[in-house]
């Protein structure tokens, strides 16, 4: 009698153990699938509105001469302030980022440009994987365009000021976030792009002008080097 009673009470216990085991195995498989790095073949085209993202996208897509190594995904992201946040949906699978800016209006837009670039740089996936960034200084065929050296200098200066105010901002709403974003660069030095682990390259180009500047080819090379 006793034996029967114990075995009967063991039955649900065994079932529980078995189901727990199953759960662990399934969980492990799901985790493995999620953490695989193999799918990282996406390139993002980012930048403010009117900087030339879509032109680049379609030129990359349709021009034969541009070096196309193998199958990659290219995502043309909207530049509107309200839609920018969606770049973070792609960062876990991003191999490289192309950031386009309009070199003719940079003086006016420097704050937005720097903010966007800052947001990309502090993104945790971009930091962890040290995703390389290619900054295209577009519209260099126009008279008022700034050269890439000047652009870099301006953006660095602005990010330097920006990181100070970002660090001093009020906490975000949910408490469990510890301390917000990481500080970019070195604490007591003016910000330089060499200070971040990501490789940041600046290229002057003109996407709709003559091909002397070779913007699309630079991007093609950038992609080819990373795949």
């Amino acid at each position, binding site marked *: 009698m006793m034996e029967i009673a114990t075995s009967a009470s063991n039955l649900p216990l065994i079932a529980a153990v078995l189901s727990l085991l199953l759960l662990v195995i399934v969980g492990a498989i799901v985790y493995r699938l999620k953490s695989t790095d193999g799918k990282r073949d996406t390139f993002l085209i980012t930048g403010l509105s009117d900087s030339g993202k879509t032109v680049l996208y379609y030129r990359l897509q349709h021009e034969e001469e541009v070096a196309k190594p193998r199958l990659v995904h290219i995502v043309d992201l909207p530049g509107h302030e309200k*839609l920018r946040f969606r770049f973070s949906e792609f960062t876990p699978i991003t191999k490289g980022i192309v950031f386009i800016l309009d070199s003719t209006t940079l003086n006016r837009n420097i*704050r937005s440009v720097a903010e966007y670039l800052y947001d990309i740089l502090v993104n945790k996936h971009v930091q962890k994987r040290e995703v390389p960034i290619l900054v295209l200084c577009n519209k260099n065929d126009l008279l008022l365009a700034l050269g890439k050296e000047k652009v870099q200098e301006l953006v660095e200066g602005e990010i330097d000021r920006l990181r100070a105010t970002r660090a001093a901002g009020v906490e975000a*709403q949910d408490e469990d976030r510890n301390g917000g974003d990481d500080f970019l660069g070195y604490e007591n030095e003016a910000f330089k792009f060499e200070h971040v682990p990501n490789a940041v390259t600046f290229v002057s180009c003109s996407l709709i002008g003559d091909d002397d500047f070779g913007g699309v080819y630079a991007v093609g090379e950038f992609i080819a080097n990373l795949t």
Partner: protein
Amino acid sequence: MLDFATVLTKGGLVLFSKSYSSTLQPGVSVPNHPVDALVRDVLVEERSGKMAEDGFNKDSWKVKWTFENKLGLIFVIVYQKILQLTYIDELLELFKRAFTNTYGEELTKLDALSDFSSFEEKFDDIVTRVEAKDSEAKKHRKPRTFQETAQFANTVAGQQPQLPAKEESNNDSKENDDSTDSAGPTTPNMSRKLAALRGGRGGARGRGRGGKSAKPSPSRTDSEQDITKGKQKRTWVDGLAGSSSNEKLDFSDTKEGDDVAVPEALVGTAVGSRTEDGVYDALEMDDAYGGTEDEFADILAPTEEETKASKPTGVFGFLRNLTSAKTLTKEDLDPLMLRMRDHLISKNVAAEIATHLCGSISAGLVGEKVGAFTTLKSAVKQHMEPALKRILTPRTSTDVLRDIFAAKAQGRPYSIVFVGVNGVGKSTNLSKVCFWLLQNRLKVLIAACDTFRSGAVEQLRVHARNLTALEEGAVVDLFDRGYGKDPAGIAKDAIHYAKTQGHDVVLVDTAGRMQDNEPLMRALAKLVSTNDPDKIIFVGEALVGNEAVDQLTKFNQALKDFSGLQTPRQIDGIILTKFDTIDDKVGAALSMTYITGQPILFVGMGQTYTDLRKMNVKSIVNSLLAGL
């Protein structure tokens, strides 16, 4: 008469555009281009539900647009606002269908950039024909005869439109005897009026009551005949009943439903009948698209692919129907959208805004394909989440500190005015902001411009004293001129004082005021227009529901109306207070950002100086969609 017409993909590629005005040439960048403004101010902000019908006004232009969600296209037409063009909707519809029919196949392919310039001819053709039709209709437009007016329906003669024959009326009264016994002592005249009032719904019954009277009334048999006539005419096409309204508009004898498969035959008869009788024009005016189907059939000739796709046959067809993507229709979405709307309202989103938002989402979903294994609900949710995120994400930088440093570099104090209704926490949150600024080593001056409520100045003085004591070396001063003075003047003096004393920031506290109190709103507009502060922050409590809309629109309106300036200031940012009290009913955040399009700079989460937070868009969206 148009200014500009264009087709663009939702990805932003312009496929076709045609300009009729010198200012809107394609390829030339125009500041404030109406299409840019449409995308920026309407489509991205999810306001299309509200404006789709009456268009969007931009400067002197009016913009109308329509979506083709299956292919992800947007069709836009721009014309001068002062031209009251009535045919734009029709034109847009034709434009859309002609374009998708012509290029539908090419658009589904991704590998080649097609050249769509050949569409120009077709488009011109459509425009000239629609315009010709419109002017034709105008020519034939006559003032209504008295018989057609509503007034006529109330006259005695109007009650008996087609006076029936005597014997018919006899029949009628006999027939109606059973039903009208209970009609009671109402006079015939009275009952007729009642019937007229009741309108179309109770027409037949009302007349039936009058049947007892000596006077002949429009017979029931008459109406019965009407009904049988209607029934005889109903045709069943593919298991669907042609609705009666369709038949009324059916001018061709040979027409079979709306089937576009036989365009030639339709065109022939339709054109013939129109040229013969003159009634056609009058009928056509009542209906936007009724006549267009056959008239423009040559343009709208469907591509082969489309006709094939519409009729999957055999086993494979069945399988494909079972597993393939399904196209969403408005009917599918409506009940769900209603539920979504109720859900949002239950989360304290203002009712008006929930309606607009759902309308906009629904407009963006109609015609889209969803996979067989996606439920409708998850499809809607998938669209809703980014839309909510988009609305809540600020359009401009929320980095106030950065602005303050920029002002400091220019050697002037940065001024912030706090406005809002009574008791929402203006002074409390002002002191929280002040604490945060002090943490960043800025010198702050508080201007006590609430010269109305007793104790307001003392309250700020206590705050200033506390804040000075809290932080070593903190510089926070109070600028007050007592009670009953003009707040605009005090603010001006305060800013001047700050400049001479080297303060970095001036925080201006104003008296709380209800949005309907005109004298107080005038005073506020004066304060803003004389001082031109760097930021006008609206302080609102998270507890409000529908009231949020009213408060914000009226504050903005007052700032606009009473300022006397060419370019009046508007609210630049919002502080949402008492956020710790509302649990997951976070709708006010959505309502406020949707109305103003301005960011929520801070969220007040408690009573102490440190309880100021930056809003987290993700958690707000999660709260809004929780429990759906």
